C-alpha cells in the first residue's frame, strides 16, 4: 500500500540537509509520496527505512527492458487507465512468433532485422521475435534460437517454450541478449525461475485466469525473480480487454502487487487482417507485448501507426515538420497557401486541399504545434515571422505569381504582411478548412 507524505517523513532523518535537492525532509517526503522522487537521493536514510519505502514507493507496474542495447524496449511503469489523463509511457512491443520447425525461420528473422520504417519522425520496427519450441527437441530449439539471434542482431528475443531443459540450453546460447523466457507455469515455475534468475532474464508467468496468475507471480517472486511478464491465458478479444483492464486497475487502483507487471498477449489468428485488428485491441488496451504470426509490411505499418496514435502525449500537441508541402502535383501556376504545424490543423487542411483536387503548395509553419488562431494570439503566427519563413523557404522561385493565401481566421494580418513581403499579393482565404475545396475550385 502506498504511504502518505507524512508516513514517509517519519522514516527520514529529519535533518533538512538539502542533499536530496529539496529544501526540507518534509518537501522530499511529499515528492516521494507522489512518485516524483527516488529514495536513493537521500544519502543518510537508514537501510530499514529504505526497505520499507522501496516496497511502498515501487511503481505500481514494474518497469524493465525487453531485450538489450539501444533497441531495447522499456515496458511497464504505466500510471493511468485512459490516455487523456496522462501519457501512456512505454509503447507496446510488437513481436512475431516463429516455430523452430519452420523452414522460413531465418527469412522471418531477416525481415524483422529490416523492418524499420520512419513515420512522422519516429523510427519504428518489429521489436521482438518469439521463438516457439514446436519440435519438442532441445537441440532443434537451440539451433533455431541461435539462428534467429544471428539474423536479427538488434531484435529482442522471446523463448516461447515450456520445457525447462530446452529453455536452459537456448538461454545459454543467447544469454547476453537477455531473452524473455515464456515460460513459467504452475508446474514448472521453480525450474524456470531458477534459469531466469541464473541468467538475469525476465520471465513470463502463464496461468489460466487472474486468480491463478496472481498466485503464480507470488510464487515466482518467492524464487527470486522480479522481472515478470503476465500471460493471463487471454485468447479472445473479450478476454484480452477484460483481463488487461482488470490487471491494470488492480495494479493502479488497488496497489495489488501480484499483478503489477507488464502484460503479453498472443493474438495469432488465421486471417492476417483480423489478427491485426485483434492486435490493435491489445495495443489500445494495455498490452506491453503483442505477439502476431506474420509481419507483412502493410500490417506492421498499420500497427505501428495505431500504437503511435495511442501513445502520443495528449498534453503536447502533435506537430508536423515545417516545410512547403506539395499536394497533388503543383505547377508554377498552382495556388500557394499557409497554415500552422499543429498536426490536426495540417491533417484537416491538407485533406481538404486534396479533396479539392486542385494541386497546391501548402506552407506549414512551425508554431510549436498551435492551431492558427491560437498561434496568432500567442504571437507565433505574426506577419514578421510569416514573412521570414516565406522568404527563406525559396517558394518564390517555384511559383510564377507571388501570391500567398492566408487563413481567413487571421485576415487581420494581410496588411502587415503586404508591407513585409514586398512584391507579394496577400489573399485572404476561407475561415474554415471545409470551405477550401469550393474556394480553390472557384479560383481555378
Amino acid at each position: 500500500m502506498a504511504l502518505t507524505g507524512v508516513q514517509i517523513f517519519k522514516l527520514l532523518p529529519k535533518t533538512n540537509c538539502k542533499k536530496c535537492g529539496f529544501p526540507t525532509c518534509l518537501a522530499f517526503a511529499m515528492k516521494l509520496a507522489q512518485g516524483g522522487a527516488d529514495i536513493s537521493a537521500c544519502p543518510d536514510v537508514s537501510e530499514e527505512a529504505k526497505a520499507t519505502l522501496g516496497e511502498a514507493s515501487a511503481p505500481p507496474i514494474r518497469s524493465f527492458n525487453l531485450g538489450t542495447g539501444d533497441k531495447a524496449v522499456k515496458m511497464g511503469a504505466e500510471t493511468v487507465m485512459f490516455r487523456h489523463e496522462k501519457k501512456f509511457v512505454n509503447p507496446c512491443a510488437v513481436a512475431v512468433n516463429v516455430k523452430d520447425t519452420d523452414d522460413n525461420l531465418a527469412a522471418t528473422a531477416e525481415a524483422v532485422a529490416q523492418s524499420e520504417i520512419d513515420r512522422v519522425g519516429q523510427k519504428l520496427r518489429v521489436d521482438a521475435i518469439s521463438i516457439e519450441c514446436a519440435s519438442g527437441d532441445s537441440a532443434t530449439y537451440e539451433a533455431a534460437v541461435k539462428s534467429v539471434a544471428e539474423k536479427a542482431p538488434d531484435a529482442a528475443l522471446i523463448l516461447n517454450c515450456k520445457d525447462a531443459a530446452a529453455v536452459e540450453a537456448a538461454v545459454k546460447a543467447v544469454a547476453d541478449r537477455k531473452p524473455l523466457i515464456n515460460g513459467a507455469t504452475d508446474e514448472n515455475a521453480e525450474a524456470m525461475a531458477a534459469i531466469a534468475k541464473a541468467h538475469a532474464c525476465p520471465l513470463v508467468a502463464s496461468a489460466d485466469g487472474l486468480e491463478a496468475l496472481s498466485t503464480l507471480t507470488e510464487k515466482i517472486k518467492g524464487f527470486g525473480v522480479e522481472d515478470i511478464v503476465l500471460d493471463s491465458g487471454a485468447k479472445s478479444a473479450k478476454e484480452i480487454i477484460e483481463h488487461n483492464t482488470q490487471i491494470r486497475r488492480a495494479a493502479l487502483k488497488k496497489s495489488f502487487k501480484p499483478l503489477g507487471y507488464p502484460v503479453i498477449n498472443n493474438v495469432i489468428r488465421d486471417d492476417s487482417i483480423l489478427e491485426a485488428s485483434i492486435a490493435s485491441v491489445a495495443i489500445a488496451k494495455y498490452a506491453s507485448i503483442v505477439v502476431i504470426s506474420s509481419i507483412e509490411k502493410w500490417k506492421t505499418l498499420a500497427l505501428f501507426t495505431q500504437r503511435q496514435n495511442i501513445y502520443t502525449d495528449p498534453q503536447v500537441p502533435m506537430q508536423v515538420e515545417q516545410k512547403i508541402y506539395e499536394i497533388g502535383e503543383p505547377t508554377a501556376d498552382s495556388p500557394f497557401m499557409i497554415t500552422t504545424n499543429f498536426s490536426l490543423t495540417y491533417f484537416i487542411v491538407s485533406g481538404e486541399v486534396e479533396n479539392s483536387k486542385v494541386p497546391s503548395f501548402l506552407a506549414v509553419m512551425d508554431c510549436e504545434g498551435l492551431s492558427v488562431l491560437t498561434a496568432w494570439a500567442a504571437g507565433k503566427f505574426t506577419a514578421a515571422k510569416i514573412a521570414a519563413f516565406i522568404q527563406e523557404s525559396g517558394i518564390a522561385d517555384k511559383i510564377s505569381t507571388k501570391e500567398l493565401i492566408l487563413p481567413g481566421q487571421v485576415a487581420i494580418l494581410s496588411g502587415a504582411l503586404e508591407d513585409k513581403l514586398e512584391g507579394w499579393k496577400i489573399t485572404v482565404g476561407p475561415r474554415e478548412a471545409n470551405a477550401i475545396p469550393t474556394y480553390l475550385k472557384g479560383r481555378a
Partner: protein
Amino acid sequence: MSFVVPKESFNGKVLSVDFGAGDKSLVIGGDSALPFLAFEGEIPNKPVIAHEIQDCAPDDWPETVRNEYKDVSGDPVTWAKHCQDQLNAKAIALRLVSTHPDRGDRSAEEASQTIKDVLAAVNIPLIILGSNHIEKDASVLVSAAEAASGQNCVIGKAQEGNYKTIVAAALAHNHKLIAMSELDINLAKQLNILITQMGFDKEKLITDPMCSALGYGLEYTYSVMERIRLAGLAQNDPTMQPPIFGDVGMYVWKVKETVAEENEVPDWGTLAERGVAWETLTATSMILSGTNLLVMRHPRAIENIEKTVDELV
C-alpha cells in the same frame, strides 16, 4: 493477498436508440459499462456497421474500394440491394454526395426521389447523410426527412451552422438525428443541448464528435469519445449519453496509406491489404473508445470488424 476482480459501476447509462422499421430494425446503445467490459455492467447491443453507398458513382473513392462495387455503384438502388442481399449488410448509409454544389448540385427534390427509391428497394434500416455542405444540407436534409417519413431513419448531420431546420424536420417526421461537432467534447455537449432545447428528445439523438483516420488525428477522436463515454457513465451527464457515431470510411479512404501504390511506397507493402487494414484498425479503435454506429466502405474491412466485435462481446 488474493485477487478480487476490480469492478466499477456507474450511475449513468448510454441511451438506447432504435432505428429502421419492421423486423430488420436495430438498436444501439443501452450500455451501463465502458466498451466491452461486460463483467461490470450491461452491454445489451453490439456496435452496428452500416455499409456506405452514395447517390452518384464513387469516382472519388480509391480504386481498391471502388472496384468492390464497380458493377452496382452506377445506381444507388442496385448498390443498396447488393449490400443488403449479397453482403448481408445490417444497415445502409446513403450519402447524398451529388447534392453538393461542387459535385453536381442536384436539388433536394432529386435527393428525395433517390431516398424513396432506395427505401422501396430494401428493408434494412437507412441512414441518410448529407453532402456536408452546411447551407445545402439545411435544405436537402429537410426534404430527405419528409421523403423518408415514417421509416424511422437516422438523418445527419446536423451541425452548429444548420441544425435548426434539420432538427425541426427530424422532429416532424419522427427520425433519429446525428449531431456533429468538430473534435471537442464541449462543442459536442453544447450542440446536444441546443438541439434538445428545440424540443428534440435526447433519446433520439446520436453524437458524432468527428471521426479521423488512423495516423491522421485518430488519437483525438479516440480520446474525445472516451471522455464522452466517461462523462455519460461516471458523471451521469445526460447530455453526453446519446450513442456515438463514427463516419469511418470517408475519413480513411482518402489518406495516402489507402491510395498510394506499392511501387510509390515500397516500405508500406501491398495496397489492397493496406487499405482494408487501415479501415479495419481505424474502426477497431473507434469501437474500443465507444462508437456504437459506424459507417464503412470496404466489404472485407466490415467483415473483419464484425468478427472483431463478435470476439469482443
